[in-house]
């Protein structure tokens, strides 16, 4: 969706400033959000793409004024209610009216294993590749209202297939329908001038990881 999370190429956010000393979690509640997300994901009611789509639906003005972990909190609340693990009444009141229909929770002893066993998006499937390294491609200029990983700054642009990563779950359909739609994922190279015009340094380039469904032959 064309929302404010898709920020690549925008001006006006000021310089990039590194903090002098920074903790993994600067505040207690930030670590709690991070951990709550992982503990709730254990119930397998959503996947990573659905998680990203939930965050993208935060209203733009609210999104811009929120910090990273506030955005994560919004996404978690959205996913919990949409999956019906909790009701919106329960979220608003803070009071549970009934136990959730789950038989187990993530236990401390299982955290290490969960961290290690991240579900991979790579799929062992024999799907033919539409393109080969060196092919010239044109990206889609569709404007999907659902989740997509083709940023606006790279739509309708010409690039070159730099490498073929193999077969991966397609984020767009995985987020909307839990349909993994296995297909080839490529690293596509775009010259800076193709994306940003003739004043961009001629030697520079931007690489994006893009699926077959985003591409046609240029």
């Amino acid at each position, binding site marked *: 969706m064309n929302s404010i*999370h*898709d*920020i*690549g*190429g925008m*001006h006006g*956010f000021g310089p*990039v*400033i*590194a*903090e002098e000393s*920074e*903790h*993994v*979690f*600067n505040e*207690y*509640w930030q*670590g*709690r*959000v*991070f*951990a*709550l997300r992982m*503990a*709730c994901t254990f119930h397998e009611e959503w996947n990573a793409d659905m998680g*990203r789509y939930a965050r993208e639906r935060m209203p733009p003005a609210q999104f811009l004024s929120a910090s*990273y*972990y*506030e955005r994560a*909190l919004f996404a*978690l*609340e959205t996913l919990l209610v949409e999956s019906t*693990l*909790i009701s919106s009444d*329960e*979220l608003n009141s*803070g*009071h*549970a009216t009934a*136990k959730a229909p*789950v038989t187990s*929770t*993530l*236990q*401390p002893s299982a955290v290490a294993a969960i961290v*290690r066993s*991240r579900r*991979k*998006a790579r799929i062992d499937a024999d799907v033919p590749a539409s393109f080969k390294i060196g092919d010239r491609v044109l990206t889609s200029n569709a404007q999907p209202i659902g989740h997509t990983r083709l*940023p606006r*700054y790279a739509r309708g642009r010409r690039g070159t297939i730099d490498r073929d*990563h193999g077969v*991966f779950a397609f*984020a767009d359909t995985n987020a909307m329908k839990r349909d993994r739609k296995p297909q080839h994922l490529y690293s596509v190279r775009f010259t800076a001038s193709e994306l940003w015009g003739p004043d961009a*340094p001629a030697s*520079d*380039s931007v690489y994006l*990881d*893009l699926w077959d469904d985003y591409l046609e032959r240029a």
Partner: protein
Amino acid sequence: MTDPDDRDHHHHHHHDGETPHNTPLSGPALRVKALESLLVDKGLIDTKTLDEIVDTYETRVGPKNGARIVARSWVDPEFRKRLLDNATSAIAEFGYIESWAEDMVALENTPKIRNMVVCTLCSCYPWPVLGLPPAWYKSDAYRARAVLDPRGVLKDLGETVPTDVEVRVWDSTAELRYLVIPERPAGTETWTEEQLASLVTRDSMIGVAGLTIPDAQK
């Protein structure tokens, strides 16, 4: 350990020694506390598990993992070749993070090529080898400008890239994670792999900083 005050004593990352149980909570801190309590009542999470997750990311995952990989790539040309050819399996050779590896790609900096990593659509980052990202990496300023004006962003962070050096920006739009292999600093020819690893910074592996030998070690 269900007393929230007791839990709080185990966390020391609050600004100015502030502890959440002494200060009235507001904003996201209050919302997170209410959500955690609701999810416990719903039977969806276990509080001790949250502590374990936070502790894992604060103490057991971090850029030291990536630094060991970079140092090995400097002293072992065969390993470097495997790393550039298939980073996922080469990183798996490090037993301690064997199964933590996501699908990874290693990017080689040379005197003529500088690589730099961003995620314009969210904040994708190679957690298994670098831990959780710094605040600037997740900032709107970095995400907006890294693709459009990478040389300007590098300047913000203290790096000037000569015009005859090519800048390649990698936007992490799919489930591939990027690790930049910085150039080995001159003057380290006699250093051990362990000494070299101590030299490798997080920012150099994101691609926004070069490496030099600290004066004290020259």
